[in-house]
């Protein structure tokens, strides 16, 4: 079964009461992959992570791990996969015992002390100072690092991380990212990461899966434009923005529909365009610029009336137009570019 994919998900459904949390007809993740999951809050990311970690089980459908179907009673699978939550729970013991726990439950007691100390060193917590500290004597970043140490010590096949650097100080964030890359390099651990830090996401992962309202989207980045829409002239519908600007769209299914706008459909200009066919000509300001994974591409985050829009330009264009964060720009796109969800 060595050529079976790491994960194969078929017809997965997860419900909570009446609400559909996840609905994934098909998803494959290969061994050695490093992928990120993105999506707005409430999109079902966390639930999917828990399912991939075999802590939750779907109401319908199957999840296969290395070709073997995972069922509720198949506990041994949790031995290969581990999940680190955003706000991790530490056991009410010393740091040493917390890190050693994974080994103890596997009855893997050889060289325990040495392995624990090494794990602690890896995450930047020198054992001499930290091993005997109690669970309440740690800062947020230190706690997160202890939690990470307790997971990498068991050498998992898959490491799943839910916002690992969200609530930590800069130094801890740096160390955590370092450790994750180094174990991937050393052991080829598969990674599944959810992080709002999209720079790191792009660096650390090869592929991004986007989840929106429980389903997987094909678009790799997203602009989401929500309703309400009111009828406007010429068959168009409009959405009002706080500073009296408007966004125009075509034929929304209902007046509260949500639209997706791909960054590749947005044009950035430093001057107000005249005589142009696009109906949406909006004024905004650049909030940040980052190098895209694709070579020669620059990602631009702009704020239009407070609403974030992500666009993409070539490096060349960015230089020519002298685009920098803080610069006023015009953001242009057709009404038909808004695709309905």
């Amino acid at each position, binding site marked *: 079964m060595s050529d079976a994919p790491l994960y194969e998900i078929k017809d997965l459904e997860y419900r909570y009461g009446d609400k559909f949390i996840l609905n994934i007809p098909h998803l494959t993740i290969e061994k050695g992959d490093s992928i990120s999951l993105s999506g707005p809050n409430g999109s079902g990311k966390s639930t999917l992570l828990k399912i991939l970690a075999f802590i939750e089980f779907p109401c319908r459908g199957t999840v296969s791990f290395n070709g073997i179907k995972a069922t509720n009673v198949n506990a041994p699978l949790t031995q290969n996969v*581990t999940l680190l*939550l955003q706000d991790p*729970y530490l*056991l*009410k013991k010393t740091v040493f015992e917390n890190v050693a*726990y994974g080994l103890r*439950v*596997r009855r893997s007691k050889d060289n325990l002390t040495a392995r624990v100390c090494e794990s602690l060193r890896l995450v930047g917590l020198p054992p001499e100072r930290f091993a005997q500290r109690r669970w309440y004597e740690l800062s947020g970043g230190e706690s997160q690092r202890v939690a990470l140490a307790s*997971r990498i010590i*068991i050498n998992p096949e898959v490491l799943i991380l839910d916002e690992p650097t969200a609530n930590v100080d800069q130094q801890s964030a740096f160390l955590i990212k370092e450790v994750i890359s180094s174990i991937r390099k050393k052991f080829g651990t598969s990674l599944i990461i959810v992080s709002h830090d999209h720079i790191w996401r792009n660096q650390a992962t090869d592929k991004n899966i986007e989840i929106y309202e429980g389903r997987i989207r094909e678009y790799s980045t997203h602009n989401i434009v929500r309703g309400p829409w009111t009828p406007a002239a010429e068959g168009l519908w409009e959405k009002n923005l706080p500073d009296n600007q408007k966004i125009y769209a075509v034929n929304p299914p209902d007046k509260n529909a949500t639209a997706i706008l791909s960054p590749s459909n947005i044009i950035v200009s430093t001057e107000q365009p005249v005589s142009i066919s696009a109906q949406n000509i909006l004024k905004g300001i650049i909030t940040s610029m980052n190098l895209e994974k694709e070579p020669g591409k620059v990602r631009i985050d702009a704020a239009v009336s407070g609403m974030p829009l992500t666009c993409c330009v070539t490096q060349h264009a960015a230089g020519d137009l002298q685009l920098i964060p803080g610069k006023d720009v015009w953001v242009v796109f057709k009404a038909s570019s808004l695709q309905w969800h």
Partner: protein
Amino acid sequence: MGYILNGFVRAGILLATGNPETFSAVFTTLKVTSMSIMASLFFGIPAGFFLGYSNFPGKKHIRAVVDTLLALPTVVVGLFVYAFISYRGPLGRLGLLFTIPGIALAQAVLVLPIVISLTATAIEGLDRRLKSTLLTLGARKKQIALTSLVEARHAVMTAAVAAYGRAISEVGISMMIGGNIKWYTRTITTAIALETGKGDFGEGVALGIVLLLLAFVVNWVLILLKRKK
């Protein structure tokens, strides 16, 4: 006022001179309560754990019953246990009436609901993330249960102390089941009741002081344990 002060003076003398009757009552109390606490913890902690940890039909009802039993009056327990262990009762052959183990048994019955209920609460109060954390670190069902119990140890210890407090301070059971027999089943509390009734205030005060000291010691041990953890 002099009458009360006299009592304290007499108490001091009794304690300082190691008065045998006083100390017999103290040791009897210690024997009885050690046995009753150990028994109630031995049965109560697993039961409380099971009640708090698992889900089964009727769980809410059983919990309600246990919580009601928290307020059992000591004389009611004494009455029921007496009926059982008197020679004519079902457990009569064990010869437990008027003995220390007999009192311990009845006290264990009295405090068992306390241990069960507070342990269940302790388990229910565990962080919701605990189970998934243990799962993801690779723990099995039994390991998860055991680790969960250890995680709840502070609250469980508090339950034990609450139970001990109830056991050591009750009179009704010790009186009815023990018979307040001098040198044998006279506990601190029954002795205080007896001496006060007879009019020997000093002896009563002496024993009362010892009882308070015992309560302080137990609490102090708990604080020590909590701090170290």
